[in-house]
């Protein structure tokens, strides 16, 4: 399978969600799908429930949910929303 994008090695993502809110549930599914499809070779996706870890969210400057943080490779970038717009998500993740 030839990746559509040059995926950077060691992709590290953190997705903040708010419990089982529709946008959050959708975002988890979308994030997993995108990772599996485009970054199958190597990625790390951490899902953080903001309702359980408000302090972490505060430290990461999370305002809206869902928010996806690309921690590595640098620079850090963030995507907000349900991640339904795959093109936008891929654009943000390939940003280096």
């Amino acid at each position, binding site marked *: 399978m030839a990746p559509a994008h040059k995926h950077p090695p060691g992709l590290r993502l953190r997705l*903040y969600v*708010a*419990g089982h*809110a529709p*946008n*959050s549930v*959708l*975002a988890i599914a*979308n994030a997993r799908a995108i990772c599996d499809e485009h970054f199958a070779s190597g990625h790390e996706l951490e899902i953080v429930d*903001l*309702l359980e870890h*408000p*302090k972490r*969210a*505060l430290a990461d*400057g*999370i*305002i*809206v*949910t*869902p*928010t*996806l943080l690309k921690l590595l490779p640098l620079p850090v*970038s*963030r*995507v*907000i*929303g*349900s*991640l*339904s*717009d*795959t093109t*936008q*998500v891929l*654009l*943000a993740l390939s940003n280096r």
Partner: protein
Amino acid sequence: MKIQPARPSLTKLPTGIQGFDEITNGGLPRGRTTLVMGGPGCGKTVFALQALVNAAHRSKEAGMFVAFEESTTQVVSNAATFGWDLPALARKKLFFLDARLAPEVVKAGEFDLIGMLNLLHAKAQELRATSVVFDGIDVLLSLLDDPIAERREIYRIREWLALTGLTGVITQKIVGSEADQRYSFLQFMVDCVVVLRHQVVEGAAFRNLRVMKYRGSGFSGDEFPISLTRDGMQLTNRGPAELTYAVSNQRIATGLPRLDHMLNGGYHRGSNVLISGAPGSAKSTLSGMFAAAACKRGERTLYVSFDEGAAQIVRNLRSVNVQLAPYVKSGVLRMYSTRTRGPNVDDQFEALRAKVREHRPRCLVIDPLSALSTKQSHIPSADAAQQFLDFLKGEGITVVNTSLMDGLSTDDSTATGISTIADTWIHLSYVVQDGERNRALTIVKSRGTGHSNQVRELTLANGGVSLTDVSVAHGKVLMGVARWERERQELAVAKRSKVAAELKRLQLQLAQAEAAARLQVVETEMEARSAEIELLAHATGSASRLVKTDRAVLRRMRHADEDLRIAPRPGAKVATPVNGGRREP
């Protein structure tokens, strides 16, 4: 935080904006949501922040400020000008959440505010916060780019506020009319709507505040002028509808003893006095004398001047022997010289209020108040002057205002309408006569005071200021040299009549002396006559006594019996041995 049931009675959160708390009977509704809307630069953020700060200062209540538009450091540093000590509060009682989204954030689908609200919930519990401000929420919501989603999130905030029982303030920008807004449903949703307006009328900027809606509470729905001062936002309330000042019967000196006399002892304590007159008619001089008299009594005094600098006023008054410099030095007298800054006088009256609160004077001079009645006659400025004078009344401060006007016409000359609310009105005018221009002083009105109806001439000299009776001759008021001449004439006439009277007196004295002399002659004559009469009487009396004695002696000598005594023989010759009269019995 537990779900709070509907509150049985509405309690209020004071904003610390005194006028606002007055018109809403206490402030913002506690546990409910208030929408503050207005165009750019109206003071929405200041209003919301001031409410938080006040709660933190006054009742040690913690609050949260969510900034969607500015960075929190910006908000804090902007508010640093207000002297609220925000950095210290931010450490303990206030939580600032920077809720801006960086421009590089990519939006990939729909999002919601559940995350933020949960963060705030956690923070509110930690701080035991009672209120929260969402400042500029439209910035974030507009990213959703979907009216239905935006409405959903706003309802989410409302639900959340109801759940947490926090007092919420949401600020919202408006452009154009209030009804034609993207989030107009917000107005229906919230419990209280405050509209701020910034308008420019003929070059004058006016900021106004209006309470559009307040569920479950009475409020005043008019527009009120607001200004941003050093202490934050100030709202100028019209004051109580009922005028219930404490009044004083105490009289205080006007600085001119003769004027005190004309006013039955001086101005009433706590009254406002208007001194009107043409340019150069000694309005400032009279005001200065009032200030000097107040300072002499040791009363704190504030002298506000718009035309001249303080040093110039002090120098000018010294020329008529009114000394202010020592009082300025001792701090009893504060001179405040300023310039009228544009036609919006609300801000300027607010600045004067601040000065009054700062110096706490008992007597105040505003020279001239007409500087604050704008060239363009705006209704707000007329209100502002009245409200300011009402404020002074409430504080019991005696104020002397001067007003520049040439005549006594009440409509155009006092645009501020202060002549109608002045308690005492003294008018200074010029009388031009016989090539001279003289100053005349009249008391137009003085409430609660029998006052002189006489015109007096006001004279300024190095020695001081004095009031002189004017002469009235053949129905004409004489002043200046004409009066002096008239007085000289009267003096000459008086002198002549005095000499004549003296002459008459002397003549009468002479006549009196003559009469007295005549009286003396008669009296002496009387005495002589009565002496003669007495002498005669004496001589007669002694003669008869002698006869009796002689007879007794004779009888003894004759050894006569009783019969002899009864019928002596006539023609008998009797020789008397001792003291003898030779009289025959």
